[in-house]
């Protein structure tokens, strides 16, 4: 891997300019601020900022918020914004990783069946686990296990059937496993119509109001997966040239690909487990970033995380406020607002792609 990193400049990758990196970080910071300030309950921009300053320990500043407003801000809104950032960042960087590893521009984080597997796991949990509090606590675990099992099966089939370095076989295996798991999921759902609404709302995707507990659950997975992917980002550049080319540059393609797929999948499965299936983020964010800053994965991967995080935070602001005090499923928002936003990027920057 050290050798690969040393070789990377030889294949003429272009890094990201500092300007774009700063712009992306500024976008995320802006999204976070909007996410914290705007919500179904108007807490007052100045008051919120003062409360944050007080929390950060700025001397002489005291929170002007009432205890209820304080609880709304710190127990509900801030953890949800953080959760949106973690899920959005994870889905975007996982999508970018899959696109590079499989040389497939249509790859998304759900490519190898993680969504279908997690959907089956969640449906089984909703339908058959005892209707107790602990039964519900196990739903994310069931989704995580289902997603991971689906990917392991897809990977085994792809490896057994495919020639040594054929990533197309792996993609086909993923599609096959996804269809099979989706069929099982639909069957179980049809057998248990009383749970239809719960399953449907899980599949549409939504960010839970579980306060900091889901943030604590998800953060280690996202940080670990992102660290692995970012550490290997130069190798993805080489892999994206094609497996044979990468091999000729001295990269152990299968081993590196496995490490990247495992990291992206575990991170995605964890994100899906807490938020359900949020569509579109994993495919449009990397492409939007690519259109703006170029095709080098060295810059694309970390920027996808940053932009994906900001994007989902903003989508969640819309989900929380568009029909306030009612909520809109966030999966609907990501597609509804993501598609036109992406079209705009395509139109204005398309010539560079």
């Amino acid at each position, binding site marked *: 891997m050290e050798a690969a990193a040393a070789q990377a400049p030889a294949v003429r990758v272009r890094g990201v300019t500092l300007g774009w990196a700063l712009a992306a970080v500024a976008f995320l910071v802006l999204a976070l601020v909007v996410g914290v300030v705007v919500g179904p309950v108007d807490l007052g921009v100045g008051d919120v900022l003062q409360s944050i300053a007080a929390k950060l320990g700025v001397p002489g500043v005291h929170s002007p918020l009432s205890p209820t407003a304080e609880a709304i801000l710190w127990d509900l809104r801030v953890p949800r914004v953080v959760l949106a950032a973690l899920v959005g960042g994870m889905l975007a960087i996982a999508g970018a990783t899959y696109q590079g590893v499989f040389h497939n521009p249509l790859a998304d984080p759900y490519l190898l069946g993680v969504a279908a597997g997690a959907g089956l796991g969640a449906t089984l949990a909703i339908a058959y686990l005892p209707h107790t509090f602990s039964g519900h606590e196990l739903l994310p675990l069931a989704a995580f296990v289902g997603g991971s099992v689906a990917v392991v099966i897809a990977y085994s089939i792809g490896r057994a059937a495919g020639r040594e370095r054929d990533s197309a076989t792996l993609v086909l295996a993923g599609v096959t496993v996804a269809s099979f798991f989706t069929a099982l999921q639909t069957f179980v759902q049809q057998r248990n119509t009383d749970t*239809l609404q719960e399953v449907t709302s899980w599949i549409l995707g939504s960010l839970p109001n579980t306060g*900091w507990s889901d943030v604590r659950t998800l953060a280690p997975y996202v940080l670990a997966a992102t660290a692995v992917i970012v550490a290997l980002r130069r190798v993805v550049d080489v892999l994206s040239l094609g497996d044979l080319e990468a091999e000729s540059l001295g990269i152990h393609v299968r081993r590196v690909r496995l490490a990247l797929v495992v990291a992206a999948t575990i991170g995605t499965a964890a994100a899906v487990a807490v938020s359900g299936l949020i569509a579109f983020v994993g495919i449009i964010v990397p492409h939007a970033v690519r259109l703006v800053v170029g095709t080098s994965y060295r810059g694309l991967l970390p920027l996808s995380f940053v932009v994906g995080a900001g994007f989902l935070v903003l989508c969640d602001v819309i989900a929380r406020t568009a029909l306030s005090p009612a909520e809109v499923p966030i999966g609907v928002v990501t597609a509804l607002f993501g598609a036109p936003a992406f079209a705009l990027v395509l139109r204005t920057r398309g010539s560079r792609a």
Partner: protein
Amino acid sequence: MSGRFALAAPLAVVALMLAAPSLAATKPAVAASYPVTVTVDNGKVTIRKRPSRIVSLSPTATETLFAIGAGRQVVAVDDQSDYPKQAPHTSLSGFTPNVEAIAALRPDLVVIAFDPKGLSGALNRLGIPVVFQNAAPTLPAAYRQIRQLGKVTGHAQEANTLAGRMTRQIRSIVQRVRAKAIKASVYHELDQTLFSVTSNTFVGRVYAMLGLTNIADAATAGGSDYPQLSAEYVVSANPDLIVLADTVCCAQTAQTVAARPGWSRVSAVRTGSIVRLNDSISSRWGPRLVNLVRAVGTAVLRLGSQ
């Protein structure tokens, strides 16, 4: 031989004794004259003779049929009909119904609350009459459905008695509560992702009747009478009363509600004004409506005395 007779004779007596009261019960007090015609959600339906093989795919209708003494005429109920216990439970589905499986039971009346994919038409073509009673929008509509079921099953008298008793009991609870003129707000929870009901729904009308302000009404603009509220809004709306209709599906309790982030400051949580309803009571419009009104009414009266 004589030994077997000795055993058989008392058995026959017991059998007669068991049969006697039920024979009396099944003989309608007022001889119901058939055919009868009712106007329900699938139009005018004519029943030619007293049905003796009823299939109920409506959990509400199942409760009503048993409450008006037509239970013995019911041969099968759907997988969601969990009350009363003695109902002949089957795996028939009212949401994804299998017409052949229903027809195989040779029913002479099928009662449904949902008519997916031409279910009633298909059963009619097989010569099976169908009574379709959609979710009742109001209390009078619920009473009317009970009377209709009484009419078609030959238990008009019992159905009238039941509807009359429900009307009186509910009216008396409402009067007791309204007399106190308690100003209070309510949050009705359908599941732990905060789906709720506005005053345009059946349960919502019950709250309005009891003089409660429904916090979900602020979300009416979204276009749904079953909006998903944001947690921030529920906490800031600070309801005086929380009604949990997700105690069975989702195992919610006063403790799980109090443990939610930010909810410990909500008035209902601080005063312990959290009503736990069996999910099925709050989602049906049958005889157990009285239980719903009584549970909420009692909680409101308790609020007033605090």
